[in-house]
């Protein structure tokens, strides 16, 4: 048996069922070993879609996503997706072929330093120089990818090592629980909470990634503290929960940003004080003492010094902190914020108003629907107006903001959750970044629904040029877009166009009932902007508003 075969068997033993990849010279022994294997390989049409597909699979299932590419251009095409997984803490193992070890360092055909290029964006990486270490490295790669704060791990595998005889067998990596936080820290957090009058929970992606949703909900039920969420934290609390104030930050809801600015204790649970969430950091939650709960010690004090750091597994900490608090009047204040700033979905005109359309779509979809999105205005509208019952129902490229994420992530999610309805909300700019994957969707018969919100522009950039560059529009016009209905049909995907709001109901009906794939080409107002908006560099107290509210 050679190492390529051993690697395939190792993946099988890790419980991997689907891998995403694209073959080429330096990874051919691995592809040869795949023949006859239990692994289901998804042949994408661009390596970026392999890694983003693995990312979507991992986020939707909570398991490690696996992608494979050849050396050189195959590997460099993975880089964006590896960075995407790194910034959003997604468990991923990326396997790349490398030129044979005697050729390494000679500028051989399709040789690049994959190990070096990816170093800043991996949790860890291995270059397999000797056959004997392969089983250990694969095991460590899986262990590292999912333990603690998850992340991508790269295995760069020279061709001669793949061909060499395997040494030893494979033992799957253990599933590790993060260490429980120090009891003294938790006790201090409890003390702070008991003394608080106006606490707010700032809920992040760590809750979902740390499998702590149940404990988090029990904690909120016991303490009854109002909750704001980051982009990745959406769904940690159901979107219609009475204590939920909405997303915070640059495009957050006023109620959420106001509550943060006025709180006296901020309980950060699995979030990282990202600039899109905090606005001007020095003016974020200015009156608050901070409890920072995170599995990653390096997040503590990175941007804001906490008063109490609770480092370790979120689950035990949340369990201990599930204590009743006397904060009735503050809760009433927060509820008043929510009522005062309720969204007005009545937009004038006959066209489709994207926030209302997305809200209606999300209400009509069943509770297990997964929505993936791309990057831009449509992404923010999804975060603001769709309701999520679980974090793994909302797949969005948060940290890296990768246009082109939506369709590949939907493919990964649908393969990981074959029973779930998967809707991909994309933009006319973003969909073109991985348009070729419509062929993958058809090849594997995936019933994904694509909602293409077409504003004939790179809308988010256009919005910034309008507001912060005095209407000087520079390279944001997409009015020469192709006919997306015909594009979809050329790939073999049924498609229809929606322009008139009177046809919304019928469109939503199709998107939530059709069995097969479908693309809805939705024409929206090219002038529509995302509101509210905290201008870059300002405090979250400065929320700009525009028309259509």
């Amino acid at each position: 048996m050679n190492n390529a075969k051993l690697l395939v068997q190792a993946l099988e033993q890790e419980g991997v069922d689907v891998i995403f990849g694209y073959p080429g010279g330096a990874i051919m022994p691995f592809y040869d070993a795949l023949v006859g294997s239990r692994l289901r390989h998804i042949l994408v049409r661009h390596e970026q879609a392999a890694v983003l597909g693995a990312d979507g699979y991992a986020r939707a299932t909570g398991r490690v996503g696996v992608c494979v590419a050849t050396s050189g251009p195959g590997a460099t095409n993975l880089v964006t997706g590896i960075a995407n997984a790194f910034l959003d803490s997604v468990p991923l193992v990326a396997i790349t072929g490398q030129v044979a070890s005697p050729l390494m360092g000679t500028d051989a055909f399709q040789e690049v330093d994959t190990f070096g290029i990816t170093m800043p964006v991996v949790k860890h990486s291995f270059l397999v120089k000797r056959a004997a270490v392969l089983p250990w490295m694969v095991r460590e790669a899986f262990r590292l990818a999912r333990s603690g704060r998850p992340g991508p791990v790269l295995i760069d595998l020279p061709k001669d090592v793949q061909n060499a005889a395997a040494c030893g067998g494979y033992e799957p990596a253990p599933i590790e629980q993060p260490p429980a936080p120090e009891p003294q820290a938790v006790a201090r957090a409890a003390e702070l909470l008991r003394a608080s009058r106006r606490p707010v929970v700032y809920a992040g992606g760590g809750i979902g990634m740390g499998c702590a949703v149940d404990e988090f909900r029990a904690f909120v039920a016991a303490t009854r503290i109002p909750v704001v969420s980051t982009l990745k934290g959406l769904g940690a609390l159901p979107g219609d929960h009475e204590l939920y104030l909405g997303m915070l930050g640059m495009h957050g809801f006023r109620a959420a940003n106001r509550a943060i600015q006025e709180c006296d204790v901020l309980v950060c649970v699995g979030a990282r004080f990202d600039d899109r969430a905090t606005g001007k950091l020095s003016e974020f939650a200015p009156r608050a003492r901070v409890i920072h709960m995170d599995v990653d010690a390096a997040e503590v004090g990175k941007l804001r010094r906490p008063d109490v750091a609770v480092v370790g597994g979120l689950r035990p900490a949340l369990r201990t902190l599930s204590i009743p608090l006397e904060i009735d009047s503050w809760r009433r204040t927060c509820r008043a914020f929510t009522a005062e700033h309720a969204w007005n979905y009545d937009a004038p005109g006959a066209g489709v108003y994207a926030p209302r359309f997305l809200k209606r779509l999300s209400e009509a979809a069943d509770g297990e629907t997964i929505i993936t999105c791309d990057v831009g205005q449509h992404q923010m509208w999804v975060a603001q107006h769709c309701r999520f019952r679980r974090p793994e129902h909302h797949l969005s490229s948060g940290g890296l903001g990768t246009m082109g994420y939506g369709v590949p992530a939907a493919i990964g999610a649908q393969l990981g959750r074959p029973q779930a309805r998967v809707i991909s909300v994309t933009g006319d700019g973003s969909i073109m970044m991985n348009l070729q994957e419509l062929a993958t969707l058809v090849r594997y018969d995936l019933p994904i629904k694509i909602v293409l919100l077409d504003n004939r522009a790179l809308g988010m950039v256009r919005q910034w040029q309008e507001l912060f560059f005095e209407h000087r529009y520079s390279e944001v016009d997409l009015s020469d877009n192709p006919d997306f209905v015909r594009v979809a049909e050329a790939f073999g995907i049924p498609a229809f166009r929606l322009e008139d709001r009177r046809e919304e109901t019928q469109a939503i009906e199709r998107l939530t009932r059709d069995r097969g794939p479908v693309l809805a080409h939705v024409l929206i107002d090219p002038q529509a902007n995302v509101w509210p908006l905290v201008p870059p560099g300002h405090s979250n107290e400065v929320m700009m508003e525009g028309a259509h509210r």
Partner: protein
Amino acid sequence: MTFAIQLQLKRAEGALVRVLGLVGRRGYEVIRVEARPSGDERVMDVVMTVQSDRPADVLVRHMAKLFDVVEIQEMREMSK
């Protein structure tokens, strides 16, 4: 401020580059670095002097997460 960090590092592929890369990327500057074999051939001893207005403890926690870092032994503040 300037501070010193002493660590034990696995002699693994790219280990030293990974540590030095992390320091720079996180907004710290390496002023001096010394790496030498330790008694154990699998491990090397590294001492580095680092400068930044960012806090030392944050960098140490970032480093401690690296798979190849066996131990971070001490951190001395040398000047403000």
